[in-house]
């Protein structure tokens, strides 16, 4: 925790020093941005926008997880299906989503629906790919142990493949949250919207209020960090063996 506070102090100091010579229009310092953030919070505009944005986010990300996790697992368990679908997931993953926004607007309008679809498509390939890798990577010995005890394919799936998959599902969820939030703000910037966080950014930049733009960006980042930390906590309590491995192995990535 000390290390984290220290890095935060260094970053804030660097930001503050970099902004010393610049005008508020050019590069607002941390003080200006935090004031703008406080204003946005107290006026209630940020909370209203957030509530709107989070609703589409929750639906889109939930659909992506609901489809991506089982899809990835089935692909891992049935190798032919994995081989068949893998390139398409990669294709979806590298597709420049911003450029198909006009198409999505054409098909799904400019309301919640299009946002949900956008976040769904943006998040799905990552979630499915991670779960696919997880199911594929079940150690051979763990499968063979089940075989020597005459486990049925059904038992092997539920007692070996799925528990092995749990940490991967959480990784997928963390990715999903991060990507979903990104996708969301991008979608709101691109899709003419009169609500949401993207809308706040758009009107602030239209009036050259850079401090407010950065305030909303900062807020989104804080939101993402908080959400990912929360997921980590949940993972540590659902999968304690994972938590233990992380502290014991001592490697850079646990």
């Amino acid at each position, binding site marked *: 925790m000390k290390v984290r506070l220290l890095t935060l102090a260094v970053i804030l100091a660097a930001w503050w020093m970099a902004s010393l010579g610049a005008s508020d229009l050019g590069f607002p310092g941390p003080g200006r941005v935090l004031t703008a953030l406080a204003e946005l919070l107290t006026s209630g505009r940020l909370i209203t926008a957030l509530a709107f944005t989070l609703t589409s986010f929750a639906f889109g990300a939930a659909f992506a997880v609901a489809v991506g996790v089982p899809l990835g697992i089935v692909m891992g368990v049935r190798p032919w299906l994995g081989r068949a679908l893998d390139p398409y997931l990669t294709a979806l993953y590298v597709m420049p989503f911003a450029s198909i926004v006009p198409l999505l607007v054409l098909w799904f309008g400019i309301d919640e629906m299009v946002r949900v679809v956008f976040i769904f498509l943006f998040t799905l390939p990552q979630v499915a790919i991670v779960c696919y890798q997880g199911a594929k990577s079940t150690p051979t010995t763990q499968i*063979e142990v089940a075989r020597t005890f005459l486990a049925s394919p059904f038992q092997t799936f539920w*007692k070996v493949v799925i528990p092995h998959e749990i940490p991967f599902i959480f990784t997928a969820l963390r990715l999903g949250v991060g990507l979903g939030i990104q996708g969301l703000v991008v979608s709101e910037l691109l899709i003419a919207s009169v609500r949401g966080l993207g809308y706040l950014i758009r009107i602030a930049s239209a009036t050259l209020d850079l401090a407010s733009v950065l305030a909303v960006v900062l807020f989104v980042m804080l939101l993402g960090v908080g959400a990912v930390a929360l997921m980590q906590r949940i993972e540590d309590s659902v999968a304690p063996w994972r938590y233990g491995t992380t502290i*014991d192995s001592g490697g850079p990535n646990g």
Partner: protein
Amino acid sequence: MADGAPKIVLEGVGKTYRTRKARDTFLGRLLPARGAETVEVQALDGLTFSVPEGRFVSIVGPSGCGKTTALRMMDGLVQPDVGRVVVSGMPVVAPRRECGFVFQDFGLYPWRTVLDNVAFGLEIRGVSRSARYSLCAPIIELVGLQGFEGLFPHQLSGGMQQRVGIARMLAVEPEVLLMDEPFGALDALTRRLMQFELLRILAARGTVTSVFVTHDLDEAILLADTVVVMTGRPGRVSDIVDVPFSRAQRNAAILESREFGELRHRLWKQLQGTLRIAG
């Protein structure tokens, strides 16, 4: 190999693995090709021996001689290309209830506690939770894991982890114990300790037939009634040597005895011969 009817019989067992050459990768293919794309590795060729009921047989041989493949065939994890593997008079076509297997890399489930790892086989057989816990309690005590029941595998040392592996095998009460270099991943001291622990555990378990794969001659002699020496690839039987020590004689002192040394020397000569064949 006198007493007891044959429990396990291998008759002219052969196995050839087809593997892709290391160069047969995307980048490898960009380089000039040399030879065929796949290589056939003949792991076993005409392997014949039997294990009498109630005996402990160690299989030693140079690495890659197919001793693990032979052991996996006895459990039905691998099928021979030619010849047959018979356990209790029945050809082995799939894993069977009467065989238990201990893996070199333990194969514990990291999300299960020690107790639930040991109880895994019983759980697969549909034994209720309370029944399997009470069945596992004496086995956990036998292998020296009492007090560790609630820990996860990563919280245990390597030796303790393999104790879980052994307990998990014993929990389903197999008649045949198949052990694939179970102490191969342990340090020398823990290894020696576990060898004596295994002797103690087996002495407490009554009559079982055991096959133990290793490349450690001391380990092979210390544990076994009979040592099967295999040649290098393709694996065949090079020699079968009976160990003249009784079960009660197996202690730390015997390792220093002249007979033990002579036996070790004889097996080592035999192995050196097979190494020359293997090239």
